[in-house]
């Protein structure tokens, strides 16, 4: 039996391995969940303080009106592009190695969007009135301003969330049907409802495959537009070094970059935690590492092009921001970002001998840190160096912003852990595409 090719393992073993995490729950698991929940509660308390006392409890000021929250927003929406790339593009190109990876990726997308979508509410001065951005008929006959990029954000993210949830749910249906014979009563009921009465007939399979192929194309189109629209929050303004045409492609490629890093990290952890060494092999991590390296090179290209054109143009208000980023106050963050995003992946993943699962995970962590710093470098120095330099200022985040940021990471952990306990993290039916004879 060729254990190196998991598809050839006996079907019963595959099902057992992939369904086992759903029933077993170690104490390590529950401790992690509760610790993460504690951090989430702390973050929510911090937000409560902010709502009660006003935005002054953050480090925001004039002129730096956008800080951690917007950085986090762009960061999380960016990571959500993991699922789209892996699932959609690899499905469309029919790359076989994507099979154990798709559901984990799609789950990342949905949860990151849910978390990232909280920030447009959290960062508001009057958060409780966020619903005024939603166009609904009201007695005052007021409409929101559809020309504002923030409205574009709203529509884009809503569309992406809807599409991603459906895209996650569709391939889940057959697995739900298989799990509907589960032994715990409440799970049985849950799975039966979610399986929508799936019987496995060829009509259903045909419809499902057609739907998934269509959804892959659509979700790809949506994902590209979503992060472009998020980037246009900055590019549509006339602030120096924001008003740049490169932002659309820059942000989309940066999003895919951070998304792959997150996916790599999550898969590496899942592999160890759920005992999936047979299914998530070195081959998968090798391919993901190569993709990460490719996106790192692309990121470097875009960043270099952006800074080169600003430097050569030598326009005073832009050069003030440029100097701040490269040599000034923000220089440490800038150069750490370059090391994390480019140097580390280039060395660890570019040199074949160094490319292992562990170095891939180290690179992923570096990239995630680097991409968070990249968003920070984009948002804060521009605002800190406005055109009227009598108004320049410095931003120092407070514990409130740190707490809320930490809470989002913890929230992601909680959501993902709960998901892996309720649903198989690898799509069983996709894993074995052809009916194989049982021995």
């Amino acid at each position, binding site marked *: 039996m060729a254990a190196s090719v998991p598809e050839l393992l006996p079907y019963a073993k595959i099902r057992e391995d992939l369904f086992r995490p759903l029933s077993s729950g170690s104490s390590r698991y529950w401790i992690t969940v509760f610790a993460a929940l504690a951090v989430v509660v702390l973050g929510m308390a911090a937000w409560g303080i902010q709502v009660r006392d006003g935005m002054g409890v953050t480090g925001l000021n004039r002129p730096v009106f956008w800080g951690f929250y917007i950085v986090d927003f762009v960061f999380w929406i960016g990571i959500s592009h993991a699922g789209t790339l892996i699932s959609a593009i690899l499905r469309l190109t029919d790359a076989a190695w994507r099979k154990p990876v798709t559901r984990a990726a799609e789950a990342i997308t949905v949860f990151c969007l849910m978390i990232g979508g909280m920030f447009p509410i959290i960062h508001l*001065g*009057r958060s409780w009135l966020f619903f005024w951005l939603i166009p609904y008929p009201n007695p005052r006959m007021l409409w929101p301003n559809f020309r504002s990029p*923030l409205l574009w954000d709203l529509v884009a993210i809503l569309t992406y969330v809807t599409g991603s949830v459906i895209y996650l749910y569709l391939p889940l249906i057959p697995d739900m049907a298989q799990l509907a014979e589960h032994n715990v009563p409440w799970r049985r009921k849950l799975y039966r409802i979610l399986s929508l009465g799936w019987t496995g007939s060829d009509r259903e399979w045909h419809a499902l495959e057609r739907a998934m192929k269509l959804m892959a194309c659509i979700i790809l189109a949506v994902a590209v537009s979503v992060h472009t629209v998020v980037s246009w929050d900055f590019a549509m303004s006339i602030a120096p070094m924001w008003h740049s045409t490169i932002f659309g492609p820059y942000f989309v490629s940066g999003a895919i970059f951070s998304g792959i890093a997150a996916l790599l990290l999550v898969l590496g952890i899942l592999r160890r935690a759920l005992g999936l060494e047979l299914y998530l092999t070195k081959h998968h991590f090798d391919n993901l590492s190569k993709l990460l390296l490719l996106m790192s090179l692309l990121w470097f290209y875009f960043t270099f092009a952006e800074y080169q054109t600003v430097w050569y143009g030598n326009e005073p208000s832009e050069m003030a921001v440029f100097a701040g980023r490269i040599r000034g106050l923000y220089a440490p963050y800038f150069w750490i970002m370059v090391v994390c995003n480019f140097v580390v992946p280039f060395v660890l993943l570019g040199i074949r001998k160094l490319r292992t699962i562990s170095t891939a995970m180290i690179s992923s962590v570096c990239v995630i840190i680097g991409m968070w710093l990249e968003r920070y470098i984009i948002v804060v120095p521009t605002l800190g160096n406005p055109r*009227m330099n009598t108004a320049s200022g410095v931003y120092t985040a407070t514990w409130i912003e740190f707490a809320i940021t930490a809470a989002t990471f913890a929230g992601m952990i909680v959501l993902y852990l709960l998901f892996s306990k309720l649903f198989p993290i690898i799509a069983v039916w996709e894993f074995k595409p052809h009916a194989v004879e049982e021995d």
Partner: protein
Amino acid sequence: MSIDLDRCTGCEACVVACHAENNLPVSSPDQAEKGRTAHWIRVDRYYEGEFPDVKVKYRPVLCQQCDNAPCEPVCPTYATYHNAEGLNVQVYNRCVGTFYCANNCPYSVRFFNWFAPEWPEPLQLQHNPDVAIRPAGVMEKCTFCVQRIQRGKRDAVVENRPLADGEIQPACVQSCPAEAMVFGDLNDPESRVSKLAGSGRSTQLLGELGTKPKVFYLERAK
């Protein structure tokens, strides 16, 4: 509005008058250090030369009420828009605090209410009843003393006469000891402000951005 930079002495009477007229909250040294003061009109100082040949230039900067205001299209709730009179209005009730308008203003003339406003006793007795007190979480900026504009227009209607040029004066214009500021109707070619705006000394701050500001700075051409 036109501001004669050759007359401005940098005394900041305009700043104080604006505070008094528009119920601007008083900041604390702590908050000021964090960059949270609000001065709807501020006087920027530019130093040229080395001691003892130092020259200081003063430029009062307030909301330029741009015709192509960059702050207007980006507000998702229409809390700031251009009214029929050409004013860039700020509707406090509609602001949810997205901060986008402030980021897009190239003149940095927008201010946020970081906390509920406070005044040390007995300053709260001095409030202008014609001007709203802004709650926490709302953006604010110079309104060209819209309450005085409304009062002036109403008085003219009640007394059944046309508005005279120079009758309405925002607090800053009224308080300037050097009479450097002139306020009026730019649509009226005979008004004093139109004549000054059309003069050879008239410039615009950051005019090259295409914002079409309605504040004209008069300065000697170099």
